[in-house]
């Protein structure tokens, strides 16, 4: 019987530097100067169509790529395949009726969208929400950030060739989805928030299950971290790919992890705090090189920070009423609507006329998983907005794709596109 041998494969995994961070492959290795070495290859450019139905485009994104050999010379993205006219529809709906539309924009983090919309409307109407509602909204936003980043992590790893993290991240995402389902009754179309409060309070056992998740989730992140962060293939495929400097990122209007990976320390939660984020103890992750690798590191760290925020939110979750005591916006309890004349009138007015907003306009933004999600309402005093504008973070991020991808290999275009973390529902609206 042949002797069993253990072959030690040296995948040239780089070691750690003095600070304990992985040593980086020098920038520029992924951009070989083929033009000089193979001049005959430069004669013909090829036009390649990618998508709209293509697994690596994360939805119905279509890219028309001009290739010089394997090098991307130009990318023209085409969007709009999922355009549903949400902004137009919003002009025909009451503020609360718009909330279901927000589920369907960034459908990978619906709860955060619901909360953002309710808060924009509240700011327009000058409504204060209760403490319990504020903390629950923080929980909703951070859970959304986690599931959004988990989808990003899993699919990006698949795009770059690592299959395993996908299974782990989707398993964790499933746990959040179970929490989401217990809370809202829906896994995708949550419609969680209402102007002035929430659709429902958290169910029994939610706090316990969320704490269990907060305990079990970081070890899974550690496993993914061990699998990818110092993996030679992962580093080779991501470092120096699609870099954006801080100034470029600002000029292109990037936001969220894309902006922070380029070294710009801007986070809406820190710089324009909402939901009392200024009272939570958390850090924002900043990258240095603005490449795919730094975006990965930033998102990994953000998930850990989200867990920190979740734990703090659970610790401080107060009792008390969930909804604001404002009969203009919050429906009276069913029992009193059936027995009390005044309550019935409020009920009738809210259902039939909707909630009127004063004349004015507001731009309200939250830090969503993808970046800065802004809602801009213009009101003429009626119950329906004159204009409802979504500032979609993915739209501005993907608009920089041609800039990031030009000069890279075609395979890197896929990695760059994955690193942006797009969701087409939000881009096309």
């Amino acid at each position, binding site marked *: 019987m042949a002797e069993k041998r253990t072959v030690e494969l040296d995948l040239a995994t780089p070691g750690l530097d003095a600070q304990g961070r992985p040593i980086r492959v020098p920038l520029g290795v992924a951009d070989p100067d083929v033009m000089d070495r193979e001049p005959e290859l430069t004669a*013909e*450019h*090829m*036009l390649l169509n990618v998508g709209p139905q293509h697994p690596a485009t994360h939805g119905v994104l279509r890219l*028309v790529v*001009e290739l010089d050999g394997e090098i991307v010379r*130009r990318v*023209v993205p*085409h*969007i*709009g395949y999922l*355009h549903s*006219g949400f*902004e*137009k*529809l919003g002009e*025909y709906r009451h503020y609360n009726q718009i909330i279901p539309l927000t589920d369907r924009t960034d459908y990978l983090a619906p709860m955060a969208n619901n909360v953002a919309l309710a808060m924009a409307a509240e*700011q*327009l109407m*000058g409504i204060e929400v209760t403490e319990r509602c504020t903390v629950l909204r923080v929980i909703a936003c951070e859970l959304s950030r986690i599931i959004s980043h988990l989808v990003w992590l899993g699919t990006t790893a698949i795009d770059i060739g690592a299959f395993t993290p996908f299974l782990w991240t989707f398993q964790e995402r499933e746990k959040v989805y179970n929490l989401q389902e217990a809370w809202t009754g829906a896994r995708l179309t949550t419609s969680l928030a209402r102007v002035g409060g929430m659709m429902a309070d958290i169910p029994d056992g939610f706090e316990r299950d969320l704490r269990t998740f907060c305990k079990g989730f970081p070890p899974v992140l550690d496993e993914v971290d061990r699998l990818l962060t110092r993996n030679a293939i992962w580093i080779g495929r991501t470092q120096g790919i699609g870099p954006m400097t801080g100034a470029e990122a*600002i*000029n*292109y*209007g990037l936001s969220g992890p894309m902006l922070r990976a380029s070294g*710009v320390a*801007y986070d809406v939660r820190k*710089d*324009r705090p909402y939901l009392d984020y200024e009272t939570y103890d958390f850090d924002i992750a900043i990258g240095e090189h603005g490449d795919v690798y730094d975006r990965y590191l930033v998102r990994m760290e953000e998930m850990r920070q989200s867990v920190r925020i979740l734990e703090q939110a659970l610790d401080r979750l107060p009792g008390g009423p969930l909804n604001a005591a404002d009969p203009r916006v919050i429906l009276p309890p069913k029992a009193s609507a059936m027995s009390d004349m005044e309550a019935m009138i409020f009920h009738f007015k809210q259902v039939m006329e909707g909630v009127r907003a004063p004349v*004015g*306009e*507001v*731009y309200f*933004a939250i830090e969503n998983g993808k970046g*800065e999600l*802004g809602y*801009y309402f*213009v009101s*003429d005093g009626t119950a329906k907005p*004159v*204009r409802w*504008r979504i*500032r979609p973070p993915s*739209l*501005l991020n993907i*608009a*920089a794709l041609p*800039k990031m991808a030009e000069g890279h290999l075609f395979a890197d275009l896929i990695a760059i596109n994955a690193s942006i973390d797009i969701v087409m529902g939000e881009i*096309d*609206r």
Partner: protein
Amino acid sequence: MNPSVETLRRAFGKSIERALVSCGQTIVYVDRQRLREVLEWLRDSADEEYDYLVDLTAVEYRDPERPLEVVYQLRSLKRGAELRVKVELDKDQPLDIDSVVPLWWAADWLEREVYDMFGINFREHPDLRRLLMWETYAEGFPLRKDFPLRGRFSRAEQVRQALAANPESHYSMEELSVAQAQYDLPADMRERLERGERGRVPEPKVQDDG
């Protein structure tokens, strides 16, 4: 009120029109002729530093008398200040305005979207094509108030047009020019492109109940 409004008035005088505060956010109206100048000053002036274009959009009011507004949501990342700059466009004049793409690349797709949805023409935009709707879309500008919620054409007409569309028309002219130069295209298609012919837009039928 954001103090930038006062410094703007000192620097640009009459070109800065009214300013108001809504929900604690300052809105300043600017003369459309000097818009780009004002925004460039806001971006580059050492005391202002509005370096981040958060959003660019347009608003049409339900009151048909009111002009269209183009809205620039600015932010200074360093100072944490925000300013909303608006330009009014009268509907009886051509809806033309200077593009701010030379100032912010972020405006590229945002202006294309406003053009697509409102029909506002951004002068000197490098690539002003429809963004969300397809290039041969013939029903008009969906976010205008005179555009019906269900669209101008009936569903039957929309299907007819979709089936009659030339698949080549889904490439932009610029993209096709690459392939054309390399003689990769069939001869008949190349001929059409050389004549400048794009996907044919069928004439709309009068809307029936569809």
